[in-house]
């Protein structure tokens, strides 16, 4: 299935957001996630299915003013 992670095209076998986070090597505890512009809390990642074309954002704390 082809999706987008942080704006870049990617191919994945993960069925859920939780699997994708693991598969892509993110530290699951230190990122926040959204799918198609909607926040997905940590606890809901295993129950959040991915679909063809899903746009996934995986964000971390960064410098800011």
């Amino acid at each position, binding site marked *: 299935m082809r999706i987008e992670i942080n704006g870049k095209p990617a191919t994945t076998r993960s069925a859920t957001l939780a699997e994708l986070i693991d598969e892509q090597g993110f530290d699951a505890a230190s990122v926040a996630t959204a799918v198609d512009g909607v*926040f997905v*809390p940590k606890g809901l990642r295993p129950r959040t299915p991915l679909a063809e074309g899903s746009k996934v954002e995986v*964000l971390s*704390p*960064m410098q*800011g*003013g």
Partner: protein
Amino acid sequence: MFYGTDLTCRLMLGTAQYPSPAVLREAIAASGVEVITMSLRREGPDGAAFRDLLAQSGCRILPNTAGCQTASEAVTTAHMARELFGTPWIKLEVTGHADTLQPDPFALVEAARILCADGFAVFPYTTEDLILGEKLVEAGCKVLMPWGAPIGSGRGLRNIDGLRAMRAHFRDIPLVIDAGIGAPSQAAQAMEMGFDAVLANTAVARAVDPVAMAAAFAKAVAAGYEAFRAGLMPPRDMAVASTPILGMAALS
């Protein structure tokens, strides 16, 4: 004072644009700030180093929604920040244009209403407009963060009269001057006018010596606050001799 939290140091520090994470860490230590702002971004090369710094700073984190141009983007970002930073505090920025970075008052109020109702402690980045301020307070904001000047411009308090009116109008709402502060003297001026705190970033990060500048800002903010509490004399247009005339010799 800020959603039930009192601050000893009334300077807040942004964490962007420093020459290195080490310099940022030293600047935080040198200024004694208790609140630092951060953002949420796609994981970059220095992400891990930054997370370590964050953990060691001992500061309260004020995450921002910088870059968001719609209420829904800002609300989603706020939710992500709350989970990641473990705080209900959110510096709500909804800008109307990528170049001016001016707050979009309509989207700002919309996002503030949604987030306040959802239990967030919202610090809205706003203008000195009184009606907008009232709408934000009605939405549930217990702090307002008016701009001094456009973000990163270093122009100081560009509309002194408007800011003074805002201070007078919102007597019981903590007001933090956010954005546009370029020099410690400008920060001191804001504090002398009775503002509750000042947030600085670019002026510190882009200084030749950011660590020394962070300390200078902290001192200026503390001095301005003390001066406000001491009560400034009213200005006069004409000279008034400070040395007594009584007892002066007749020498002519």
